């Protein structure tokens, strides 16, 4: 049993957990920990410019590696600044361990300088959190925190550490010595229910796999098993925004993303299927549209590690609580042992129907040789980068995000980082830095909107300081495009506060930060400009001036079922009905 200070324990526990990088920002209540960080070289500390940035970087790090991201911030404002990022990680099930400093235990509750009730504020936005009052409990708590963050449905956890606990000496427990507590979510699915589902697979005429972020969170085995199951059964597969890359975009059974801005064929297949197999997705309202009309004639299966996801919004016929990889393994084994049966005739008709839907060519848009269309910009970016297997894409939130999901193809998991559940503008830039820190040699691109990008642009300083060659590909429509789109569909084209009158000169901004700026406004120059961005060995801010009035289609208006999708040609004012108008 080793004696050491609490501050030393923090560093030792992180080392024990195999942590290589932490993202943080110092302040009075974490100075002892920063002093320990100064005196070692095992763990790299990335100094951010704002605590929200630290959390999004840790999210980018976690999503692109499958390992938990670690954040260190001070008490009070440090902790409150981290709240948006923590909530983002909770909504998207991203494992994070956030360490916050706190005023000394004897001052807690006295409205001390930079005191905030951090565990109170973050209780609803963490998977779990702890206030550690004794140095002897600190190392054990940190080890448990990693266990909780990474097991079951992953999520952010927070440990609040008062300054006197950091200074005091106590007994260090290694990860092995520390108990894991009783928390151990079930990973094996119910075999009887899996067998029932396999029986349904064998006879289904119009089956569809509807996959989500749970496949990616489950790990590489889940991805492999999904691919095997999809290819062996010949069933079509679609995915949520979170699940892109689990099944390759070039795979022959791929229908594209589903949901509010998903592909026509994917949404109609969801609506008309007779067997829906949800693997690691959660029937989010962006996916279901009007719940009462959601896929009315199907039997539904739901595989999820979180029991509370099952039957939350959509009642299912085959509820299976378990880890995706474990359940898929059992499903495949049982299906094979029963003779690998599928309804061949039914499937042939089903694929013929899907081929009809595909003819609609729902992503078509009117191109221009005068102005860059955002879709065209992404098509070119895709064409010029898709050969790079080490390509990682982050996005901000808005139209550009949906276009990126539609026009970029993902062949592997963990290559696509976007804020889905919370829809946090300002996510992409710091997330891209976190990805680049984890993969220094990779090509990391943040597809951004100018509005979102400005929300955390201070992090360009971090990118420059750590020579993270992130490419900020800004689709600059000088508009809060997604807000504008809703105003045009819902509020009679009254564009209330949805554009910026004073955008910065992004090229000069790049120079001010000490990186490269590129501006492009002519479609004829676009390829060369993208090549210039890719060739530059350092961070780039690419200001791509695009069409200002483009709307993103297809779109299922809020409160409508899947088969009431708007395509590019129907830009009606009353596209969203009164009932849907109250929805977001």
């Amino acid at each position, binding site marked *: 049993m080793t004696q050491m200070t609490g501050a030393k324990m923090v560093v030792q526990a992180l080392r024990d957990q195999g942590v290589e990088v932490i993202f943080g920002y110092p302040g009075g209540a974490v100075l002892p920990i920063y002093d320990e960080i100064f005196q070692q070289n095992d763990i790299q500390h990335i100094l951010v410019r704002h605590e929200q940035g630290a959390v999004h970087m840790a999210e980018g790090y976690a999503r692109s590696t499958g390992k938990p991201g670690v954040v260190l911030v001070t008490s009070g404002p440090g902790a409150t600044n981290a709240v948006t990022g923590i909530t983002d990680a909770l909504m998207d099930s991203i494992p994070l361990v956030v360490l916050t400093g706190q005023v000394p235990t004897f001052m807690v509750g006295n409205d001390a300088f930079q005191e905030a009730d951090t565990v109170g504020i973050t209780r609803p936005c963490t998977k*779990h959190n702890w206030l550690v009052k004794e140095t002897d409990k600190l190392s054990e708590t940190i080890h448990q925190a990693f266990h909780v963050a990474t097991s*079951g449905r992953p999520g952010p956890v927070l440990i609040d550490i008062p300054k006197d606990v950091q200074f005091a000496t106590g007994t260090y427990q290694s990860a092995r010595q520390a108990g894991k*507590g009783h*928390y151990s979510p079930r990973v094996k699915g119910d075999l009887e229910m899996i067998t029932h589902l396999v029986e349904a697979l064998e006879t289904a005429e119009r089956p569809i796999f509807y996959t989500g972020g749970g496949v990616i969170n489950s790990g590489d085995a889940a991805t492999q098993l999904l691919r095997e199951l999809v290819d062996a059964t010949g069933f079509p597969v679609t995915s949520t925004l979170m699940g892109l890359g689990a099944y390759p975009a070039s795979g022959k059974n791929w229908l594209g993303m589903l949901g509010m801005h998903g592909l026509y064929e994917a949404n109609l297949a969801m609506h008309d299927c007779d067997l829906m197999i949800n693997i690691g997705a959660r029937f989010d309202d962006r996916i279901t549209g009007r719940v009462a009309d959601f896929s009315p004639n199907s039997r539904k299966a739901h595989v999820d590690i979180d029991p509370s996801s099952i*039957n*939350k919004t959509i009642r299912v016929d085959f*509820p299976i609580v378990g880890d995706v990889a474990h359940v898929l393994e059992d499903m495949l084994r049982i299906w094979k042992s029963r003779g690998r049966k599928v309804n061949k005739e039914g499937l042939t008709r089903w694929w013929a129907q899907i081929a009809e839907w595909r003819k609609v060519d729902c992503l078509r848009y009117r191109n221009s040789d005068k102005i860059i269309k955002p879709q065209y910009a992404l098509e070119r970016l895709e064409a010029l980068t898709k050969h790079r297997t080490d390509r990682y894409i982050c996005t901000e939130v808005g139209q550009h995000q949906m276009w990126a999901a539609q026009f970029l193809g993902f062949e592997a998991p963990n290559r696509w980082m976007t804020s889905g559940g919370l829809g946090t503008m300002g996510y992409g830039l710091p997330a891209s830095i976190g990805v680049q820190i984890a993969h220094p040699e990779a090509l990391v691109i943040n597809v951004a909107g100018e509005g979102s990008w400005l929300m955390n642009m201070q992090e360009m300083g971090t990118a420059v300081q750590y020579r993270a060659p992130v490419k900020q590909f800004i689709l600059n429509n000088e508009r809060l495009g997604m807000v504008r789109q809703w105003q045009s569909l819902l509020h009679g084209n009254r564009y209330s506060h949805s554009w910026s009158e004073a955008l910065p000169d992004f090229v000069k901004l790049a120079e001010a930060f000490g990186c490269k700026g590129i501006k492009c406004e002519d479609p004829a120059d676009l390829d060369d400009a993208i090549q210039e961005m890719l060739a530059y060995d350092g961070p780039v801010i690419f200001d791509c001036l695009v069409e200002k009035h483009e709307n993103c289609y297809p779109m299922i208006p809020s409160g409508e079922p899947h088969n009431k999708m708007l395509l590019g040609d129907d830009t009606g004012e009353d596209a969203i009905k009164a009932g849907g108008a109250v929805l977001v």
Partner: protein
Amino acid sequence: MAAALNIQKGTSKLSAYDLRDPNADIEERHTLAVIVDNEPGVLARVIGLFSGRGYNIDSLTVAEVDHTGHTSRITIVTTGTPAVIEQIKAQLGRIVPVHEVHDLTVEGPSVERELALFKVKSSGEKRVEALRLADIFRANVVDSTLESFVFEITGTPQKVDAFGELMRPLGLIEMARTGVAALSRGT
């Protein structure tokens, strides 16, 4: 239809689930027993869950029940449609310091008791009547002055309600209730 509800086998001794329509709109009253680690903030987590997700709390009691294991038992009486009740249980189950969630309403017969104190101020006939009713309800007098009594009553919430209704016209001026404690019958 039992399959459509997310229910693990063996949790229902009376197979009451089979009798319930999962899509019903009718609100049911359920008594839940939640075994939690007795650590700071655990009650806030449970209450925050109910307020954050808009569930009802009709009654909530909590106390440490296992001193060595540091576990507490939270008894919650809630109302909701069958779907909401299932959600509540699943949401409680994912709170990290929660060990077990029991739905006493469907897991078999159970007993529920509540303790209440009623202060009744009256004189003459009313005072005598209050005392007589207290006797019928087996309520104890735990404090008396020349113009008031404090009655202590233990029983099901319905019995406590009934006693309170009777005391109202007889000079009830204040009451305190503990909320429900509940256990399943048998072993």
